[in-house]
């Protein structure tokens, strides 16, 4: 399922990045950063094409041997980037679309939060809860500080079954 999710502002700085803590996070941050170029390319290509309406969902940005990167841009030029494990071949396009739709809804809720100043890093604990953790573990833990969260998740992941069929099914419910 989704291994990393990022929300990137109009000016191309990250508002929210979350990835599965079991892997090297820096690698995902770098992937998201490089995918921004592809996103900009797609946006300008769509702008030049004389299509009547432009889609928000950008589709597959680029595949690597382990991961696939998908993109989505909102009307306010906020970009969502999602990195997905390539080995999960059962993932269809409309599932990715529905994940992006949920992410868009959560982002809209964050925007409507009176305590949120547009342009700041997203620190709202509950608004991005449905997508706050790519791995579907107990929601109570994923709201804490990142470092604490990492240790908790590490303990939980160790206690959960390792990524077998059951693990994959649990991940499906993003």
């Amino acid at each position, binding site marked *: 399922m989704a291994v990393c999710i990022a929300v990137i502002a109009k000016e191309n700085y990250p508002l929210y990045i979350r990835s599965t803590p079991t892997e090297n996070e820096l690698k995902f941050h770098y992937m998201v950063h490089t995918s921004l170029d592809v996103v900009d390319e797609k946006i300008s290509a769509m702008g030049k094409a004389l299509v009547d309406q*432009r889609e928000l969902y950008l589709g597959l940005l680029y595949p690597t041997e382990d991961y696939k990167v998908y993109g989505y841009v909102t009307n306010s030029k906020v970009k969502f980037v999602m990195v997905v494990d390539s080995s999960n071949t059962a993932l269809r396009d409309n599932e990715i679309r529905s994940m992006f739709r949920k992410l868009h809804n959560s982002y809209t809720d964050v925007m409507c939060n009176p305590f949120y100043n547009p342009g700041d890093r997203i620190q709202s604990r509950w608004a991005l809860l449905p997508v706050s953790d790519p791995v579907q573990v107990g929601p109570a833990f994923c709201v804490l500080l990142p470092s604490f969260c990492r240790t908790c998740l590490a303990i939980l992941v160790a206690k959960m079954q390792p990524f077998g069929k059951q693990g994959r099914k649990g991940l499906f419910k993003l």
Partner: protein
Amino acid sequence: MADTVLFEFLHTEMVAELWAHDPDPGSGVSAGSRGEEVGATTGQKMSLSVLESMGFRVGQALGERLPRETLAFREELDVLKFLCKDLWVAVFQKQMDSLRTNHQGTYVLQDNSFPLLLPMASGLQYLEEAPKFLAFTCGLLRGALCTLGIESVVTASVAALPVCKFQVLIPKS
């Protein structure tokens, strides 16, 4: 419908409350470009800019929430049309009556029966009081435009209640 009056009452109370704080000797900060305030004190200007910034924040949130299902806008005029149709319908349950532009970045949006002014009067009575009831809406427009990527300056003017015009100036960059 009862729903529409809820916002109107809230708005009226907001204006009344912020205007009542007028007598404090504000330190000359006059942000916000307002229409006609002949003889307004700095305190009054501050209330207007407070109202406008309230509208701005609401507009930012609305600008994110409302176009969610619509597909991406192609140009400025599309965004303005969205404001006149979808935003106005969502907030005031009616569409803007006319949109004019000089294609140089100036747009004039005219509403012939603005719901926030409609219960006040019809004609020239209360003309001096009208601008403060438009401050919030100016901020609303500016906020929605800002979320959709357009920096602008929005001013409003009233010639005769309840007809009002919102002028949107988009500086060329």
